[in-house]
């Protein structure tokens, strides 16, 4: 059974600081997704990582994937308040029908 673990689960940052969220998964997968969720809202797709070594950047967020280590990172650069949200990584198990297995999420709070 695929397990997806994120850490930290809670992250309080000051504006302007950098930090990294980690996502580990337990079995083979070659695609990983990052989603953002604001309170009471649905999930917004941020990144799709499809191969080993994939790196994608959008604004202050950069995501990477190491399929050999079964690790993805979401790096936040110079955080701003608008980035406050919960961030989920999700993995498609190898051989599955595309069902996403989500991590527990990282609740990010960026303070002035």
């Amino acid at each position: 059974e695929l397990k997806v673990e994120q850490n930290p689960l809670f992250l309080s940052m000051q504006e302007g600081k950098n930090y990294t969220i980690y996502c580990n998964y337990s079995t083979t997968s070659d695609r990983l997704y990052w989603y953002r969720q604001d309170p009471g809202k649905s999930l917004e797709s941020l990144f799709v990582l499809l191969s080993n070594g994939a790196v994608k950047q959008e604004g202050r967020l950069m995501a990477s994937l190491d399929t050999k280590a079964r690790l993805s990172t979401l790096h936040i650069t110079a955080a701003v308040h608008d980035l406050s949200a919960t961030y989920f990584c999700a993995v498609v198990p190898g051989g599955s029908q595309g069902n996403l297995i989500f991590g527990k999420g990282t609740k990010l709070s960026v303070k002035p």
Partner: protein
Amino acid sequence: DAMVIQNPRYQVTQFGKPVTLSCSQTLNHNVMYWYQQKSSQAPKLLFHYYDKDFNNEADTPDNFQSRRPNTSFCFLDIRSPGLGDAAMYLCATSSRLGRLNNSPLHFGNGTRLTVT
């Protein structure tokens, strides 16, 4: 804009009273998913349809059923809601399954279900 629409946004039902949540999509995607997300938890897959082919997750309770009368619509039926079924229910679509799918799932805005 093509999108995934869920109705209603908020639903209150009584303990044991059947309730139906609906999802429609204009993306013409083959695959539709229903996820349950309880407060401060990760979304959990209940089941999905690939076209008319229904796939139930092994740990989805029998209390949860689904219907997909056509490509555009999918329904989640909760036959006898319990207090533990209070959650956000998220519908999602994708164009293809498994290894052929390079796109993220497209999620609707969700229906928040309260059971009294």
